[in-house]
């Protein structure tokens, strides 16, 4: 049973710490947002934000190209 009591202490300490930490984070971020708002000019948003993705994800298949061509051709025909 002694070990169960230790586990209980762990539970309380652990949940307490993770909650405190994330609450503090919430508080800091709420503050920081206000502050940072004045400094947005330092790092302006880029127009079309490109997100680094998995390298293999950009991989396109010639199929895609073929579809693209098909679409393009179709549009051209109806143009």
């Amino acid at each position: 049973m002694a070990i169960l009591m230790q586990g209980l202490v762990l539970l309380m300490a652990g949940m307490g710490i993770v909650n405190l930490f994330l609450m503090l984070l919430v508080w800091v971020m709420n503050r920081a947002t206000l502050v940072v708002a004045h400094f947005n000019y330092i790092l302006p948003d880029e127009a079309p934000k490109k997100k680094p993705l998995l390298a293999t994800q950009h991989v396109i298949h010639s199929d895609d190209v073929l579809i693209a061509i098909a679409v393009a051709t179709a549009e051209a025909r109806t143009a």
Partner: protein
Amino acid sequence: MKKIILSCVATLTLVLTHAFAGAPTPVQAPAAVPTVATHAAATPSEAGDWRTMIKRVKALKDDTGIAGFISKNPPKYLSEGYMTPTGAMVPGQKVKVIGGIPYGLGQALMIAVCLTLLYLAIVKEFEPLLLLPIGFGGLLANMPFANVAAPPLVDVVTRTVTEPGGFLYYFFEFGISTGVFPIMIFMGVGAMTDFGPLIANPRTALLGAAAQFGIFAALLGALGMSTLFPEHIHFGLKEASSIGIIGGADGPTAIWLTTKLAPHLLGAIAVAAYSYMALVPIIQPPIMKWLVPERERKIKMKQMRHVSKMEKVCFPLIVLLLCALLLPSSVPLIGAVMLGNLCREVGPSVSRIADTMAGPLINIVTIMLGLAVGSKLACEKFLNPETLGILVLGLIAFSCGTAGGCIMGRLMSKVCKDPVNPLIGSAGVSAVPMAARVSNKVGLESDPTNYLLMHAMGPNVSGVIGSAVVAGVLYTLCK
């Protein structure tokens, strides 16, 4: 075609049977010739005549996998210990497989287990990027005499390596023993994660905190189990903590902590963690529906505000500094995530780095980490009631985490001014982005126009931070 095969088989079987049978062949002459090596460079293998070689060929049958699977004994390096190339002495262990079954049979059973893992990974698509390498690593490591995960043979006197170890041994020592691989995976995770939804709505971080309750529920459960069944299950605080961290639903965090606290459970815990992450769409919905009434499931949340680049760049630094001030033991994990995320958010000037972290680097490390973790699926460590316990406790961890998140969601829904749909609480267990998708799906079932995905990403990514924090705390308190 059949004929040729049959005739060849017949001929060769004849030849080999003859050899195996040790029948005195007609050619007796060479026996009289003294077989002293004929030149200086003669290696020991040349000494002896052709009979020696035939003896060796015959001896091959003792080294087949078939012979291994019916053998009783574990590999020598396990039972008798060994010296590592750096001179450390690893002591031998008493290796005992469940039910006292022969070691070889245990290995055969583990191969069946690994094939099941591969089935789940390939056919059921359970986190295939990790479970396929883990399963394959386990497969290789359990093949008798293949020594794929064996340490090198070291001459105890001269300290030279006389036979190199298996490649899984090197992968493990290089990346898992040092803790480097999980850290590198976390860099990639950071470079792939968008913390925007959390920055836009910081209070959802509390859901990510509440969902960590699963970790501690499983921890207590593990201690309870070993109190209830002291003769079958032996989980101390270290083991219980490692099992609990399954509920963090973050593979790298689980591997990192388990390697440090309870390395003998690494195989089972990694398998449980990734399996349940894949099962999130099955585990979570019933709990969510049970805990959140239909009415609250329909709550629509306000559209999220725009998050500026400056905020996104500052966020990783803020989290890291907070962590440094309060919880240094979580710094390696949180630091790695935040490094990756910082590179991601800084944009084009460092996109080479961010793309590499989220691309080739994480892929390469994933392959080696999966195989190395799989190499710890040894029968004496996996085939026992404790593994069953770990599987049960892992389920408890995920369920309680989901419940914790949902309950905190309902509490926030009541207290907060802005509407909060409690369903996003379940996303706090991380398992990014699966859990967030589940929140979205369950929400859509109640109201087909209510898209919760982006709102659920907040607790989802804060769950990653939350379980890294818990891992640091558990490490400090239990090491």
